[in-house]
């Protein structure tokens, strides 16, 4: 399946549990700001806890699903909606092809995590899919979501 990013949001990056073992070489760990929420999102979506998720900051992205899937949103309450209807956080949610996930406005907390059943298909760099923007590695092309590139999961 793939997703289409309609609106990148303020600061949306791919993160997992981080790039561990390279700090001695000057490479920070990166990874989800809130590993617990990230892990719960993955568990709800039927993934391994350490699977890559989307970390959304303050203003979340608008994502269109190109195929049916199961997702979960955890962490801060950034006002997630599916086709305009509010959806609960910390629940596994079934999404159909064509449906759009939007975050309306931050209500509580700063960061929300979106897990997709099956994970995110971005390459492992030094053992992790986490985005490290300064060195332009990991995640989607080494940076935050900028426009609307297709993203598969």
């Amino acid at each position, binding site marked *: 399946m793939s997703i289409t990013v309609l609106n990148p949001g303020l600061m949306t990056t791919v993160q997992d549990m981080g790039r*561990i*073992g*390279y*700090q*001695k*070489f*000057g490479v920070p760990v990166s990874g989800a700001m809130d590993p617990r929420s990230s892990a719960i999102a993955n568990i709800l979506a039927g993934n391994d806890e350490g699977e890559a998720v989307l970390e959304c900051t303050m203003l979340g992205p608008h994502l269109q699903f190109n195929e049916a899937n199961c997702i979960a949103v955890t962490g801060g309450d950034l006002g997630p909606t599916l086709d305009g209807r509010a959806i609960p956080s910390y629940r596994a949610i079934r999404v159909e092809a064509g449906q759009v996930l939007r975050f309306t406005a931050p209500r509580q907390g700063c960061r929300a995590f979106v897990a997709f059943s099956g994970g995110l298909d971005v390459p492992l*760099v*030094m053992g992790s899919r986490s985005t490290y923007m300064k*060195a332009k590695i990991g995640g989607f092309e080494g940076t935050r979501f900028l426009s609307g590139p297709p993203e598969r999961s």
Partner: protein
Amino acid sequence: MSSNPSPGSNLNSAKPSRSVLFGAAFLMATSAIGPGFLTQTSTFTARFGAPLFLIIVLVIFMDITAQMNIWTVVSVSGMRAQDIANKLLPGLGYVVAALVALGGLAFNIGNVGGVALGFNAMFGMPEKIGAVVAGCLGVIIFVNLMDKVATILAAIILITVAVVAVISKPPVGQAVSSLAKINEIPSMFVAMTTLLGGSCGGYIAFSGAHRLLDAGISGKENVGHVRKSVIQGCGTSGLVRILLFLAVLGTCTVAGVWSASVADSIQTAGTPAAEAFRLAAGEFGYRLFGLCLFAAGISSVVGAAYTSVSFLKTLIPFVAKYERQVVVGFITVSTLIMVLMGGAAQLLIIAGAVNGLILPVTLGARSVPTVPRGSRKEPVMAEVRFLTTGDTSLSAEFGNEISPAINAQIRAFDIALSASGIPGIVETVPTYRSLMIHYDPGVILYAPLVEKLRGLLGELDQIQIPPSQVLEIPVLYGGEMGPDLDFVAQHHAKTPEQVVEIHTSTEYLIYMLGFTPGFTYLGGMSDEIATPRLKTPRVKIPAGSVGIAGSQTGVYPIDSPGGWQLIGRTPVRMYDPDRAVPILPSAGEYIKFRAIDQEEYDKITAEEAAGIYICKRYPRQEADK
């Protein structure tokens, strides 16, 4: 044999041999008990009488304290005094070594003379022949049986002095009761400092400490043995001092009353100890004195020569290579000077004077390295501070300065930790002066982890630390690749070639990595090419650029903005996230730059692009200092 391991890299865990430990103790003791020791003790006893006993006892305690400090510092650090001094203040070690060697030579001439006097007293042998025999004996003892003979000579000295002490029937009660008379100390202050100098001044304390190092006894695990040796050595010289004191005291006490005339005749005699022995036991006493002086002198001949050379050998490679020959030469030269100049008694006085002059200087110089190091060096591992840095990491802080020695300890600890099998360690990050340890608190909690880490610090000496690697980085200097090379050269009134020459002549220690992936914090660049940063930083500096900023040098591993003076560029990829080993350099290694031409630059660039370039790495030759 004369390897000079860095702290924490000592691998001696075998139980040290008893003969070496005894030998070191008695080498020190008999180095202390030379002709000067006998003279000073006799003279002061005759001058002050029973009250001197208090001073003698105090000096023994001070001697043990001072020597305990010196021996422990030397043996735990695995470094000789001159190396410790050099580490503290570059060049200081050479000064100390020169003073000690010079003092040792002056002293040794006196020692040879002392042995000659001893022969003369025993057999009436002419002085010059006695000196030659003394020199030959010294060489034979040094070459063959140093440790055993030092023990035997110490026994001879003890027995001879003890015999006279018994014969002279000293008023022991008077001496012991003087211990309470603390108010008399100030009047005998000169005696105290002189006697202390004679017990542990100059090279004396180092004779035993360096002997243990040469025999491979060092490191924390041997501290117990080393301390026992100190007590033995200081106890021996102290016992001899007390016995000699009693002998002279008994001689000066006629029918229970202090005899000023006897005391006076001892003080004014050419050799006070000989006079005391003679007055106590007649002709037999004089012969005994000869035997005692012979034993004291010959052991000091060996001790002074050996120790003086031990000061020179880590500083001068030639001496290290031909150590035995140099010691033999040292004894030979002292003997020749003695024979050519003659007059043992006068030379003893001259030697004493020279030594008196040198002692304060070396003691003053040495108090700088030994006193602070003593409190800092010995428990260096115990002083590591553990700081909490969040709920999943802690920082082990090894010091508060940027130094290769501290960095080497961090590297050793890191290597030991990774080999230790302590559970729950996630990753470690070495920095200039600490090691950050990330752990999983679900596996191990803070307190038990710190306990395990402390245990590991205690065992650090037993863990084999592989030699540091040198990473050779080829650099195309100047031109388009190094636009600031000419500026750096002009800044120092040098040619660009000279700058390159200086820049490529050093092995730079990689203290740590940080800032960006693969960015090395290097140490050791020559001040001759240190250059301020650019006034206006560049917006983009290409990866591989080699720069200088202040006294720092380094390679930009990725494109980034920066204000360094760019003097060249390497075609080597310091960092490549898609490579099996993404980052080339690691902390604790060294980088050596090698100048290359455009052709080689292009070749390496092509090989890097094809993923087949292998950067040259080799073990560092010299032991880390």
